[in-house]
């Protein structure tokens, strides 16, 4: 847990779940774990995790290989990529949501990497975004 008075600038990575009540600027990569941004948490970072739950503020892109939940007190400004996204009543969201209920985000990444660059079938073929998201 990152407590309310803690400020971290840089990359946060590891192999366990994380609760953020303080401030994080940079990158958060907990690919196989859960990241929870608590009500007092303020994150200016791209987040990559299995499950991401936002009760506080996030400014940055979120990739959840399983799901992303923005709760009623959550405020997210950025792009979300996840198979499932839940927005609770009262949540504030500004950006885009890339959902694919049929496959996980991690498998989408591998598919995107195999796809030829000039394949015209995808309607959102922003290279940087698709590589991150699939």
């Amino acid at each position: 847990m990152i407590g309310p008075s803690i400020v971290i600038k840089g990359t946060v990575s590891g192999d366990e779940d994380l609760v953020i009540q303080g401030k994080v600027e940079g990158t958060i990569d907990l690919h196989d774990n859960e990241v929870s941004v608590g009500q007092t948490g303020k994150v200016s970072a791209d987040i990559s995790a299995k499950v991401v739950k936002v009760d506080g503020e996030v400014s940055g892109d979120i990739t959840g290989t399983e799901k992303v939940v923005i709760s009623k007190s959550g405020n997210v400004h950025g792009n979300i990529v996840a198979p499932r996204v839940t927005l609770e009543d009262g949540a504030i969201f500004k950006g885009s949501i890339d959902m694919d209920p049929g496959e996980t985000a991690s498998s989408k990444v591998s598919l995107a990497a195999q796809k030829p660059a000039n394949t015209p079938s995808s309607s959102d073929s922003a290279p940087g975004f698709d590589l991150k998201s699939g």
Partner: protein
Amino acid sequence: MASTQPSKLLSTLFEHIDEEARITVLHIGPALPETVEFFSRYRCKLHFVDLFGELPILAEEDVPLSLEKQFAELLQFPPGTYFDITLFWDLFNYMSSDAITAFLMTLRPYLRPGSLAHGFAVHNLRNPPSERIYGISDLDALNIRPRSASLPGYAPHTQSRLKTLLSCFQFDRSVLLSDSRLELLLSAKL
């Protein structure tokens, strides 16, 4: 308090989309839980742009092309983005003719033949503002929430005027609603 409004045209947007197809959607308005939940059944990318929160969108004096510049800042999408579906709701009832023209000029590069759009207009210019926030609850129903504050700049256009202004769309169908508003189904005319 949210309520439900039936829609006869909304389902048409999804008629030709199979479950394997990947769609890109522009939703003009705030992201609502029911809309995200509705689209979670599709392989999709949803872009939420709440232009209602930017109203009134007015030209600045002595700034050439100021409307175009404002929309260029508000509507920023990744290269290669093409919208299959655009949900305008009642946006055009709150925009001047010049603003609508500038908005469409900005949007046009992100449309392609076959792009569909849905929105509301008025049957009678004396119709009062509806002051609603729209979400999709199902293929044939919208969730309606009242706005907490009135939007500025309500100045609706007649359907014939809208047809002229929305030059990159053709009006496929329109349905007169019980409150004397019009539900519109549009397709890109590029």
